[in-house]
Structures are given as C-alpha cells and as structure tokens.
C-alpha cells in the first residue's frame, strides 16, 4: 500500500510541473520522459480485454486487487499517452479501493494537461480514469458479496 494519499501525490505532481513553467514543448517532453520510465506491462497482458481505445492511441490497462488496494499496470502505443498514464498510476496504484472510487483528480487541470490531452477523442486518458474507477468499484462489490 502507498505511504502517501492520493492528494499528497497530486500536490507533488503539481509542484514538479510548476517548475517547467508555461513552455508547452518542455512539458510534453517531460511527460514523454515519465512515460519512458513507466514499468512495462508484460506482453501477455496486451490483449483486447485490457484495451482502452482512444481515437488515435491505444492503452492497455491491467488492474489487480490485494488487501483492499488496487494495483495498476498499463502501457500505450504512444509516448505521450504513456507519460499521462504514468501520472495516473503514480497517483492511483496501490491506493485503497474507496479512495480511488471517490478520488477527485484535480492535478490534471492544475498542471494544464487539458491542453496536451486535447479533445477527449484523441487519446484514452479520460476513458482510462473511468476504467480505473470501474475496476475499483467492481472489486469493492466483489468483496461486499463475499462477506
């Protein structure tokens, strides 16, 4: 489990991005760099059932649960989307299910990500947030049914 809360991590990210300033190019290059550092998703998990399709980029997302926490791994075919994913994983992976379900991911707006993301059709980021929350909800329901 993460030793930091979702909001603590969001604040860290906002601080990091504030150093980059307004320059769009450096922001994107930084995101791409983050993407390159993302722990790779094993090839056997890059399958249709893990796929979230954006208009132009693909995201594979795998979610597992352990002790009421959600563990996420993901990959994408574009470097920028991969970088955006790495931010989501950093914020949400290993967090408690309830925290994820109720998370308000305000860092996306604060770091000016809307400009990079562009329209929601362009990549799978928005669908990915939705999908992560759905996984958390599904695992929670599963736990409730077991008890």
């Amino acid at each position, binding site marked *: 489990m993460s030793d930091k809360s979702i909001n603590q991590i969001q604040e860290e990210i906002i601080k990091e991005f504030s150093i980059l300033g307004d*320059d*769009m*190019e450096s922001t*994107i*290059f930084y995101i*791409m760099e983050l993407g390159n550092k993302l722990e790779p998703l094993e090839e056997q998990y890059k399958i249709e059932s893990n796929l979230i399709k954006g*208009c*132009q*980029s693909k995201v594979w997302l795998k979610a597992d649960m352990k002790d009421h926490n959600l563990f996420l791994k993901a990959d994408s*075919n*574009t*470097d*920028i*989307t991969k970088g955006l994913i790495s931010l989501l994983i950093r914020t949400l992976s290993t967090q408690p299910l309830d925290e994820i379900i109720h998370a308000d991911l305000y860092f996306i707006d604060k770091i000016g990500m809307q400009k*990079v993301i*562009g329209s929601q059709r*362009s*990549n799978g980021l928005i669908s990915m947030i939705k999908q992560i929350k759905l996984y958390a909800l599904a695992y929670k329901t599963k736990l409730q049914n077991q008890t």
Partner: protein
Amino acid sequence: MTVKTINETISTIKEINPEKIRKLFPILNQEINGKPFIYFDNAATTQKPLRVINAINAYYMGYNANIHRGIHTLAEKATATFEETRSMVRSFLNASSKEEIIFTYGTTDSINLVAQSFGRKFLQQGDEILISTMEHHSNIVPWQMICEEKGAHLKILPINEKGELLMDEFDELLSSKTKLVSIVHVSNSLGTINPVKEIIEKAHQTGARVLLDGAQAAAHLPLDVQELDCDFYALSSHKMFGPTGVGVLYGKNELLNEMPPYRGGGEMIREVTFEKTSYNDLPFKFEAGTPNIADVIGFRSAIEFINEISKPGMLKYEKALLGYAHEQLEKIDGLKIIGTAKEKLSVVSFILNDIHAFDIGVLLDAAGIAIRTGHHCTQPLMARFGIEGTARASFSVYNTFEEIDKLVESLHRIIKIKRK
C-alpha cells in the same frame, strides 16, 4: 532542390506572391504556443480570406432574409445573391445549366443524396457499386447503407504500393451489374490524382454512372464537368476557402430529373395537399428547408478569390511546395512517405519508424505547426498499407517554402529528443 526546380519555383513565385496572399487571411497572423502559426492542415479545411468573412458579415448586417418566396426588398437581395453563387458554381464547374447545381451541406451530404436518391431509384438486388481502397469513409459508408437496403454489392478497386489505382483490375471489376462507380478525384490521405477521365469513359461503355468525390480536388484542379463527362461531382466549400456547412452536388440534368427527392419539406414542393404532393423543379426539389444562406453567400466570395488568384497559378505553386516537401522530408532518416503516386497533389502523408503519429502531431503543435494525424477517415486504406495512421501535412497557396523548412527542423528536433 535542382536548378530546374529552383528556376521553376522562382517563376511561380513571381506569379503567386504568398506573402501578399497571406495578408488576405487574418487567422494566419498569430502565434500558437508562442511560435509563429504554421497551418499545414489544409486538406481538412482551408483558412478563409477576409472577403469571405466580410461577405457573411455583410449578409447578416445588411440583408438577412429568407430566400426564394419573399417579396420584400431584403428577400429579393438575399435571393439574388444566393442564386448568383449558384451561377458562379455553374461556371466554376462548367456545368451546362445552373439547375444542375444543388447546394448541400458538404461533400458527405452530396454523396448521401446520390446514395439515397439514385440508389433507391436505380439499384436492384445483385447490382454492384464500385469504389476504391483509397476512399474516404464518406464515400464508403453511404454505399454500404444503400447496398444493404437494396441487396446490392460493394466492389473495391485495389491500389498499388505507391497509392495508385490498379486500372487493369478496373476493367475486370466493371460489368453490366455495375450501376455506379464512385471514386475520389484526389485522395485526402495520399494526394493521388486519379485518372478520372479514363474511369468515366470505361464506366460509360458498360452503362455505369460515375460520381467523383471532388472534396480535395475542387480548390486545386481545373474542372470541367462537361469535358470530364462525369454524372455527379461532389465538393465542399470549406476546403475551397469558403465557409463550413456548404457543399455542392453537380448532377447531369436528365439524371437529376429522373431521381426522386430524398428529403421532404419546404422549398422542394410545388403543391401540397394531404392527398398528394407534387415536387418543385431542379435544383429546388433536392433543397428541402431553408438552406445555409449566409454561408452560400460566403462561398461566392471564396470562388471569386480562387478565380482572381487563378487556379493554374495556384496549382503550379502548390506543386512546387509539394515537390520541395517531398525532397526535404525524404532526407529524414527513418521517415517514410505514404503515397508516392506519379500524379499527386499538395498532401504529404508520412510515418516515422519509432515515433507514433499522435506524438508527432502534439509535438508539432507545441512548435506552432498544425498538421493532422491518424487514419484521416480512410481506415481501409490504412489497413492496405498495414499501418494505423500517418502524420499528414497538406499545403495551400498561402504556405511557404520557409514553413516547410520549419516543419523539417521541428521533425529533426523531435527525433533527436526521442532518440536521446
């Protein structure tokens, strides 16, 4: 550049002065992400000269009125200006009469009109419609819909590795079952100029009708529908410096007369009773409802603009731009141009071996350069090349050689950072 190309370019620039032309387009004079704006997305839509914007403004400020049946002064003026546009389009296409010019909402709408009206009247079970691998989805899906309804079949003319139609196979595919051949005049993804004259001649020999999707061609190539002898020609104003929401369907008079209206409403009727409605004459029977008056009037100014700059001059200049872009882009290590047809127009699609087109698009935008990335609404074509999409730069008369240099510089920069 070779000496010959330089000389040709210099002589073209004397005829076409891009700096002077750029001043006519207010939108070009701005910065995007702190960099001078470079617009290379002209195949998606062209920018609008001030005169087009002014014409729309003047209509709303001075003579906004519904057209055709009003008897007051403004209605007369609006009707006259609207109908003048029709006459200008007639002469732009060299159609034999203005009744053959139907205003639609765009190329997609024009093709749907033919699919629904011509298709319902003339298609029977087992008939065939022939399109090609390089068609835009708007020249695929309307035919799939009507084929499904009528039990007709869609046949596909394949292309070679350069992105040229395999004309030998065209002869094989044509038969007495072929009711319509619907082919793109210039490909939006590849830039290929198709041999439409030959296609039309051959199709007519077997009794098939021919529709040309002219969305990418109309602003660039000289057009004469009578000389081409095509049965239908579809185009969009917004790809010709005009407003969005206006398109044209040219159709041969006798054919349009045989076709039933496919949208009902005002404008398109002669007399309505609850028992029976009789339809208006051409072109009005296909123009149900109040049309997009303001933008049709704006389109008139766009055609004036093209006529004043002169199409042959523009074409020569745009070909020089394309030639230069090819030369420069081909030098980039790992870059592959998709679409290398001998006859080609102002579009260059490319892939960079280890960089996704989406990343290229976002990074170029950060450098102030607008291109398009993705499948360009031609997924079957992308599948033919075994790719998901391309990065596409498309040029117009206001683009410059220096802008192409900046594109190439930016691509080098992206590659350098990616491979660091």
